[in-house]
Structure formats: C-alpha cells, structure tokens
C-alpha cells in the first residue's frame, strides 16, 4: 500500500465513521501535506488507516446521522398461531423512512411469518399492520 492508497483508505475509514465531509477533506489534506514534507511510510507516521481514523474521529467528533423520517411501517401486537403452535406472540416493529431494519432469529422462530404479515400476504390472529408510503 503506497501513500496514496493509505490516504484513500484513511478517507474511506473517516466516511465510514461518520466524520463530517469538510473535516475529512481537511484532515486527509493535512496528512498528505505532512507526508509530502516529511516523507516516511504512512504506516509508521500515522499507523493503520483504521486506527488513525478512529483517533481523528475521537478528536473531532462525528456529524449526526440523517434524522429518521415519518413512520412507513408499523406492526403492533402481532400474534399468529398455527393450530396450538404460537409462532408470533405480541411482536411489534416500527420502521421509519430512511431506516434499514433487519429481522434476525433462529430457524423457525417466525421471521418469515412476521414479514409475510407485514407485507399483507397472510393475516395475523391479533395485531395490526399499517403501511404508509409517499405514493
């Protein structure tokens, strides 16, 4: 990894850690200037791009993430039984615009059933799903 690669990785790490765009520009330019003036291996001068990005973000802080938008999906008190087998018991999920949600769990715990109910493909025994979109 040469100096340019190091700087590129460093910039990507700063983005990844939610540093502000202007701050990233300045910090990367300053590191580049330092390397140009002093020479040296960026790994020795600054350390790994990951560790240095973490130290920088600790010094300058991060920008707040995008504010969550209006509620797009609201599933409340979802209960589903197959015979005597309770697949879902009072499960709830709220997802706002711009959010990414993951439904995780062991095999057979009801993830697919829950998502089918959210999508309106099957009906819950109890609870309510509200989906609202912009269009």
């Amino acid at each position, binding site marked *: 990894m040469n100096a340019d690669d190091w700087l590129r990785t460093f910039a990507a790490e700063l983005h990844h850690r939610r540093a502000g765009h202007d701050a990233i520009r*300045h*910090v990367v*330019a*300053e*590191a580049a*200037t*330092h*390397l*140009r*003036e*002093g020479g040296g291996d960026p790994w*020795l*001068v*600054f*350390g790994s791009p990951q*560790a*240095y990005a973490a*130290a*920088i973000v*600790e*010094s*300058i*802080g991060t920008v707040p993430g995008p504010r969550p938008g209006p509620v797009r999906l609201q599933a409340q008190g979802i209960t589903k039984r197959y015979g005597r087998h309770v697949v879902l018991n009072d499960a709830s999920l709220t997802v706002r615009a711009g959010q990414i949600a993951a439904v995780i769990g062991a095999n057979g715990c009801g993830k697919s059933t829950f998502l089918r109910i959210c999508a309106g493909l099957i009906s819950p025994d109890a609870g309510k799903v509200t989906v609202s979109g912009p269009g």
Partner: protein
Amino acid sequence: MDYDRRGQWLRGVLDLCVLALLRDGESYGYQLAQSLDAAGVGPIQGGTLYPVLLRLQRTGLVTAQWRHGGSGPARKYYRLTDDGRAALRHGGNAWLAFVAPVTGIVTKGVDG
C-alpha cells in the same frame, strides 16, 4: 519500556507543548513536530500530533487556516487564541507545580 514511558508522559503534556510552541506565532503540523524533536522531546509522529491539534482546534484553544506559506505546498497553520493563551498559562503552571516535586524526589533517588 523507556519508549512506552516517554509515550505516556507525552500524552499528558503534548497539548501544553504545542500551545507553548504556538505562543510566539503560528505554525503547522510538520514544523511543530520538528520543533519538538529539535527541543529534545524526541520524534513525534503525525499520528500522535494531529489528533492533539484537532482537539485543541475543536475546543477553541487554537484556530487553523489553510495557506500557501511562501514557497511550498498549502499548509494548515495553527494559531493560539486568547483561550489557548489562558489554558497555556493555567496548564503550564500546573505542570511546573507537578514536575518540580517529582524531579526533587527522583533526583534524591537517583543520587542516593
């Protein structure tokens, strides 16, 4: 071990050293590192120095400005603020009050 020890001491006073070096005029990262080395503190890597400069900037003890310094590339010049001057006075006196008795104790230990 001596190298680790020096690193730990530096972490405690590098901000004060930087403020003190900026007292008589603005400077930039690479030059500050060279000044510290020339003063006998030893080599300061960029990975140690810039986080300190950025923290000083964020807390308003220094301001920074990108400029072409005569010949050479554009550099980010740091300058002491009034708050920085006050922090230097306060922190510097606290350091001197701390290091004097430490030196006294250690000197007795080493000489004895």
